[in-house]
């Protein structure tokens, strides 16, 4: 059932290519054709529910950012994954499909917030989870889990409390094996041990950022 849809889709749009997947049907789609494909998916192929929109940061690889869309059909009860790579690694951009699926509105804002992928044509593209002035994109691979020191959004609260956004101490784990090198070095350790509560965080970029 799902395969038939896949064949029909690749016949209709010759720029689509089948993507390796562990479960559902998956397609690669060029970023500039995404809007067209999404429109057709909803109107002609019965994928009436957009369940999820997200992105992946492939770190050193190029193209670095991919947008991932999961569609669901309430008629055939099948999923379809569509992946679109962002052409630009520095200023990643994708077309917004929130005009077709209103559900995409918040999902795209979240992806922008976490990974910095800009969605052209989005009606209200601003941060949704972090506060508006937050300077970083937390889910990018160079961003350390512990966070980077920055200012809190409310100046008056900062004045009375001297509170700041500080990096979280990571020496308490979780401990994960690196799985490389001799066993003595591969033993489980915290991913980011650049600083502890007794030792101040160094100013150089941490190991996590270099990785």
């Amino acid at each position, binding site marked *: 059932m799902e395969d038939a849809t896949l064949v029909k889709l690749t016949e209709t749009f010759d720029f689509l290519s089948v993507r390796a997947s562990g479960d559902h049907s998956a397609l690669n789609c060029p970023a500039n054709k995404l809007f067209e494909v999404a429109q057709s998916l909803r109107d002609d192929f019965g994928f009436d529910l957009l369940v999820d929109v997200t992105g992946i940061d492939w770190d050193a690889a190029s193209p670095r950012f991919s947008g991932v869309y*999961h569609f669901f059909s309430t008629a055939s009860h099948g999923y379809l994954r569509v992946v679109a790579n962002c052409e630009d690694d520095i200023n990643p951009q994708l077309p917004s499909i929130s005009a077709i699926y209103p559900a995409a509105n918040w999902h795209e804002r979240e992806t922008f917030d976490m990974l910095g992928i800009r969605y052209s044509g989005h009606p209200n593209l601003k941060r949704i989870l972090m506060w508006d002035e937050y300077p970083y994109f937390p889910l990018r691979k160079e961003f350390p889990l512990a966070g980077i020191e920055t200012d809190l959004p409310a100046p008056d609260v900062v004045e009375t409390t001297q509170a700041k956004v500080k990096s979280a101490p990571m020496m308490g784990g979780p401990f994960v094996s690196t799985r490389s090198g001799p066993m003595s070095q591969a033993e489980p350790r915290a991913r980011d041990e650049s600083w502890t509560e007794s030792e101040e965080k160094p100013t150089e970029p941490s190991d996590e950022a270099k990785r």
Partner: protein
Amino acid sequence: MAEVKEITIGDVAKRSVDTAEFEGETMALNIGPSHPTTHGVLRLKMQLDGDVIKHCEPVLGYLHRGDEKIAESMTYNQFVPYTDRLDYLAPLANNVTYAMAVEQLAQLEIPERCQAIRVLCCELARISSHLLGVGVYGMDAGAWTVFMYTFSQREKLYTLFEELTGARFTTSYTRIGGVARDIPDGWLGRVSKFCDQVLPVIDEVDTLLMRNRIFMERTAGIGVISREDALGYGLTGPNLRASGVDLDLRKDRPYCGYEKYDFDVPIGKNGDCYDRYLMRGEEIRQSVRIIRQVIEDFPDGAYYAEDAKKIFAPPKAKILTSMEELIQNFMIVTEGPRMPEGEVYFEAENPKGALGFFIVSKGGGVPYRLKIRGPSFCNLSILEKLLPGHYLTDVTVILGSLDFVMGECDR
């Protein structure tokens, strides 16, 4: 004698809309993020014209804890406790969904007994979540009693959870490839006893609310979500079904052996707040039905997958007494589990809707990217569309009927 003047008050709110002097003048009103109706830390920025909402902008993120980033730096089993805290009204269901997503990546077959335990977990979690949903909903509409009724039932459920998992609601019960431990002796009997006495309570709650004039006036015809809107905004779970869409992943994409059980999926007609209330009551009854079928034919066997040895830590007693298990445990701890490469997306029907996990693996024991699709996140996105046109007093009822939880919304 003084003239008797007849004063008709009528609908004050409506009158204020009709009065021309209010035209064009709006008032900004902020609700939350610390407000009893928002069930957590949701914030609504609204523009009011008199009592009528003209514009609404929900602000989220006050509980954004960085779960997805945390997941990228820990092994698959280490992340299980974080799934408890997504939808913290139904942690067992989250545990199961997460474990099943990873098992799909690892392509593990789960033994029947484990599946039965998981179905029990999911359905008990559903009852627990809906009990709170209905109770708090009643409270939002001004009926405090219902909350007391349902909360005392939840306490009984907590006792069962505690017996099974060791914790009241941060259960962390599943492991990749199984569950943490087998069910305790006599536990099934106590579950079945719970089921026997929860049904009369649901009936009693219905007598308190279902034909309650005040409750009906406040909910019927309020917050109507059309079928198209529900689908367009990606609603799932009871909120989607209340709008007349027949979609229940337990039926339509059966997992965990749900195809073996006989149950009905309630579908709403009007998609209003009243329908969304009815859905939850009926789903509790159906869950009880499933639980009874599971208990009746409870399979024997292992509670974890035998071929999950590279991921699943062996039982503690065996680690201490047997060489092979000791080595196995040592390898899992020092090297981490070995997982194949690939991308999987798995969704399960959680009490709040479809909870999805999208996992990108590059091999090894740590996910490269783990995206959590929180049903409450999508269910709330409709607020921008739904609230305008309603009275301010309807906000509490509409929010209560959507039954969201900020833990999985903000992640």
